[in-house]
């Protein structure tokens, strides 16, 4: 055992272990799983960038053949999808902002051990995870507030996620209480403690929860489906659905077919990439945070 304490590396303390048959199997299995996860996305990208003949003959696999940007040029020309993009960007910003502020405040306040009544407030929040009025009663409330067919309906009724609240509260509980106490003895107010001490220490969990909210709003389909009725207010996912499963693109492709020959298939795939691109761009940047945030927030949760 003393031998092992020398270094804290991830392999068992410098003991050279042979590469067994089991390892070979594990590497192949995990490698295959990764390929299966990635292939459909590469396939979509490849079809969106391939030439007419290649798409027509179904010969495109994971890389583009006879590269053509025609499908993207066609998609970029459509006002509808930019409108939808703008709606979704707005909802994502409002929703993530509101969600982060409310969740952080609730999690911080209810992580304070000596706050009278904190158990009751927590219970009120947690109970909604197990029991809810359901889709229609919620719809009636939203309708009563005059929010139907407005952007507000897309984020206000689901502003705080209980799951995000729980992982954030777990994180705050793990912070040493003495930090806050000493700051208060130095005369700092509650708000100063939150902004100057707690928040700077909480970057991973804020990034994690922020990412969860942003993805929830970006990918939202259900809320838009039930609350948005006007075509010009469609979110990106609603617009994408009508492109993918409606007849809109079929008719358009025949027209553009005369001009530059684009397959409907390429247009569909290009619109998928258009709607998913922002996520693919921020994903690698945020990944280090959310892995850390999930680890810290869920260990005891």
């Amino acid at each position: 055992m003393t031998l092992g304490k020398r270094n804290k590396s991830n392999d068992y303390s410098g003991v050279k272990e042979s590469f067994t048959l089991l390892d070979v199997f594990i590497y192949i299995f995990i490698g295959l799983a990764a390929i299966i996860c990635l292939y459909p996305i590469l396939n979509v990208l490849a079809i969106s960038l391939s030439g007419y003949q290649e798409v027509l003959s179904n010969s495109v696999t994971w890389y583009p053949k006879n590269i053509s940007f025609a499908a993207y040029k066609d998609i970029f020309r459509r006002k509808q999808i930019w409108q939808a993009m703008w709606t979704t960007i707005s909802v994502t910003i409002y929703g993530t902002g509101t969600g982060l502020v409310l969740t952080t405040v609730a999690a911080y306040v209810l992580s304070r051990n000596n706050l009278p009544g904190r158990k009751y407030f927590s219970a009120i929040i947690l109970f909604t995870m197990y029991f809810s009025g359901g889709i229609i009663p919620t719809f009636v409330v939203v309708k009563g507030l005059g929010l139907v067919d407005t952007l507000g309906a897309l984020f206000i009724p689901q502003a705080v996620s209980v799951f995000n609240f729980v992982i954030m509260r777990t994180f705050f509980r793990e912070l040493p209480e003495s930090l806050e106490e000493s700051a208060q003895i130095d005369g700092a107010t509650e708000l100063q403690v939150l902004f100057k001490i707690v928040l700077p220490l909480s970057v991973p969990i804020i990034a994690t929860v922020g990412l969860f909210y942003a993805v929830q709003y970006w990918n939202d389909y259900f809320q838009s489906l039930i609350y948005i009725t006007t075509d010009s207010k469609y979110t990106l996912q609603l617009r994408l659905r009508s492109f993918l499963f409606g007849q809109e693109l079929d008719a358009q492709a025949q027209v553009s077919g005369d001009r530059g020959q684009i397959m409907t298939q390429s247009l569909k795939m290009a619109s998928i990439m258009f709607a998913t691109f922002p996520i693919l761009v921020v994903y690698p940047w945020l990944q280090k945070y959310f892995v850390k945030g999930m680890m810290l927030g869920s260990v005891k949760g």
Partner: protein
Amino acid sequence: MTYKNSSAPAGIYKKTMAAKIWRYKWLYLMLAPVMLYFLVFKYAPMYGIVMAFQKYNPFKGIFKSPFVGTEVFRKVLSNHNFWISVKNTIVLNLLVLVVNFPLTIIISLMLNEIRHLRFKKLTQSVLYLPHFVSWVVVAGIARATLFTTNGGTVNMLIESLGGTPKSFLGDAGWWTVMYVIMNTWKEVGWGTIIYLAALTGIDESLYEAAYLDGATKMQRIVYITLPLIKSTVVTMLILQVSRVMSIGLDAPLLLGNDSVINVSEVIATYVYRLGIVRNDYSQATAIGLFQSVVNILILVLADRFAKLIGEEGII
């Protein structure tokens, strides 16, 4: 704690409850908007459940619509379509659970064994990615390229192996398989993060001691790693079993089509069609209530069971 750092006039309220509350007034003030949100958007709808016992009339509203007792429930429970949606919800959820649950654990254990850090990080990034793709996109991939009858990736593969193309989207049996596959693709990788989080706390010296005692890799997985994640496994199982009656609307609605409606209609899509499309608020509310009550019953049962086998439980 001394009253020096309390912002209240300590001499007057000292040690009383009111003083304590006054001391934390800013915290309560900060909490107020959050509680207001839950009151308006989570608790007010609970009152709306009375619609399930009314003959709801949109012009009269919740407060004036006439009460009809359990008539709405009897109507719902005697409807064949309702029971089909219940059956489909349970079947689809259980199939996804049976495939995803063990697979998630197996992949977590495998990832935990990988010592090649760059390979591990890279594969983890790729495995988490599908979780961040929307259901509209996943359905688009499934219906427009992956499982299409004519020229779909899977059918091309089948043809190149000498088989005949299958109608994955139009056939009820194949549709169910496709539904499970797309769920597996989207969520299994992401599911590993919770087990890997539980595994980061493991003391490396345990493995080392086992190695020095001559334990094989398989023995270490079975006798060290598995027992260490056992409580996480039980918690996740309870959570997922207790959700057997809840299902998102996105996947079944977007993947489904008219020819497979007998297997793709689930409670969420049924409530959507009944409540939002056909404006029958009373019936849709009753179904929602039925679902919530069953969920709570299963949750309590699963929790009791966990405590019975000596685990912590979740309530």
